[in-house]
């Protein structure tokens, strides 16, 4: 009994530490900082209310991510007509002064991601931001691994096309692959 209480307290602590990551994931999914706050709060509240049902802390991260995914999906269903991605400013507004390379890249990438379908965004962000394995993503979102792979592949294809003109601006930038496992 005492053990159970310890685990629960431990889980609460882990949840608290997870909150910045949940917030980042929510933001990457929905594209709106204040909505991301709301979704994170909602997910954390649900998680804290049910934390006693969680037996082992190892499952905690995936469990919290799937709660967040459900909150995000609920939100999408509620707001079918409105554009969930509110933070995509008009490119014509970007003045020359604002064109610091890095900022521009971040802006471009976020805008491109906002054009992906919510399904693709969910998968892409879990893989890229949280470094989840495909099987973990499958479990979190409740879809088969094959679907994870095809959604991811389509998400990246689309993203590449959306970013194509932007990447031409930085011909010198090359990615590195130096570490081999």
């Amino acid at each position, binding site marked *: 009994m005492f053990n159970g209480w310890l685990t629960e307290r431990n889980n609460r602590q882990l949840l608290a530490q997870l909150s910045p990551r949940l917030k980042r994931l929510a933001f990457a999914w929905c594209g709106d900082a204040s909505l991301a706050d709301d979704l994170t709060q909602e997910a954390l509240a649900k998680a804290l209310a049910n934390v006693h049902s969680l037996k082992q802390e*190892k499952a905690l991260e995936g469990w919290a991510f799937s709660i967040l995914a459900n909150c995000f999906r609920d939100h999408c269903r509620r707001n079918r007509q409105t554009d969930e991605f509110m933070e995509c400013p008009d490119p014509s507004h970007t003045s020359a002064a604002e064109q610091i390379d890095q900022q521009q890249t971040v802006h471009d990438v976020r805008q491109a991601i906002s054009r992906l379908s919510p399904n693709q965004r969910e998968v892409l*962000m879990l893989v890229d931001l949280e470094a989840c394995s495909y099987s973990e993503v499958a479990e979190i979102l409740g879809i088969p691994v094959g679907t994870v792979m095809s959604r991811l592949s389509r998400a990246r294809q689309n993203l590449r096309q959306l970013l194509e003109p932007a990447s031409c601006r930085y011909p010198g930038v090359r990615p590195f*692959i130096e570490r081999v496992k």
Partner: protein
Amino acid sequence: MNNPLYSDEQINAFVDDELAQNERLVLLKAAVDSESLSTRIMELQYLKERTREAFPLQSKPASGVLTPSVSWTRYMTAAAMGGLSLFAILASTGHLQKTPVAPQTAINTTRSSAEQQTQTRVVFHISSDRQEDASLLLDQVELVLQEHQRSGRPIRLEVVANNQGLRMLQQGQSTVASRIRQLDAAYPGLVFAACGNTLERMTKETGEKITILPEAIIIRSGVSYITRRQQLGWSYIKV
């Protein structure tokens, strides 16, 4: 797109580190021979990096705060270690559980990037249940820890066990349990971590109740944990 041998899915799996070591090598070798293939890999890798960079962690939780209701509302603003904290969370909780006053905690508060570099960080990986492998692993771990202690260099050393390697951390099955206890007591910078995915699978398959040694923490996935460590510049040794 003119390398029909590899599908986009496969190349994605490579970039996301989902391939086994031998598959990785085969694909790497093919990429060396094919410019179109290596370009496709590079493009995907680049895309992945850009996506990651577009969403840096904005805040980190106040460390050491015990009541969650306080800690998750009181964010610190984006700090230099913001990115690091994301990946360090699992490890640091491990430290907190074991040794509330581990030297790392003291280093953390004042750590600059220069100090960060002088600290050795290495993750050992075991995935076999051969007794010799477990012994060899602990020999090497002890050697490295001793060497650092002698020269006074700070070190963080983590041992990740998955697949059959989990046996090493299983209560009642481990042939090296007492040695793990000794090492754990002697070196505060040492962490043993068991793969939660493996644990779950083994429990399902065998139906037995598997208990992990009290010295070890349980992580979600051994492989993705190691990958994150490597991305942060940790050295990696597979025994």
